[in-house]
């Protein structure tokens, strides 16, 4: 795991997407946090922008994601844990974060980060606190 000369890739496997939107942060925030609006672009859900709130999201008919809000800073930042089952009876955990910043012309910059993919056993998390190594392996493999 220790290769001192390798360029650090702290976000080696993260998905980072940036968008310029015409709408103001207030409006974008509503589209990110109100269930009926979220349902229209992401899937049925019972989201609420409250830290600790657990909700279920169905992005596709055959797919269920267990989410938990970990950060909710109105009109600025929303982050939730994204937990999916895998076929082996375990789970894959990751985190989805939306960052909203106002732009000079009254619109918003939206950054979406899907990161921290890690796998754990059937019984839940198995000591994965220090185990965000999957992406490092992947980065090494891809290098």
């Amino acid at each position, binding site marked *: 795991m220790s290769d001192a000369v390798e360029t650090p890739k702290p976000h080696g*496997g993260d998905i980072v997407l940036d968008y310029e939107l015409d709408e103001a942060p207030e409006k974008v925030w509503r589209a990110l946090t109100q269930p009926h609006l979220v349902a229209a672009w992401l899937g049925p859900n019972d989201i609420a922008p409250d830290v600790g709130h657990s909700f279920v999201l169905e992005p596709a008919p055959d797919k269920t994601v267990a989410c938990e809000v970990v950060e909710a800073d109105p009109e600025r930042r929303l982050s939730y844990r994204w937990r999916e089952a895998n076929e*082996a009876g375990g789970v894959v955990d990751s985190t989805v974060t939306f960052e909203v910043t106002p732009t000079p012309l009254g619109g918003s910059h939206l950054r979406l980060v899907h990161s921290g993919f890690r796998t754990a056993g059937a019984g839940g998390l198995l000591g994965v606190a220090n185990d965000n190594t999957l992406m490092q*392996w992947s980065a090494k493999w891809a290098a």
Partner: protein
Amino acid sequence: MALESYDHTGVFRALADPTRRAVFERLMGCEMTVSDLTTGFAVSQPAISQHLAALRGVGLVSERRAGKFAFYRAEPAALAPLVDWIDQYRTFWPERIERLKDVLKGMDQ
């Protein structure tokens, strides 16, 4: 979107065990014998051998025999199914953000 279209069950299962993940990680970048590996783990040599067998079964570890010694190394390319699995989100999110844009256009105010 079909996240189910890849056969990653075996790789997931093999990596679900923390000791096995640690074994795999130690074998990244260097070949080791079972006794090399046993040093540093609070796990018996037969247990390590069992973990190695499971990792070999899904292609995450390979074995090279030299005389009476067997050397093991990680095969990170076997992680490809996991990488593919994650990569599907690289198409999922842009599609959904396009829908989000439509939602925003349709909102009042």
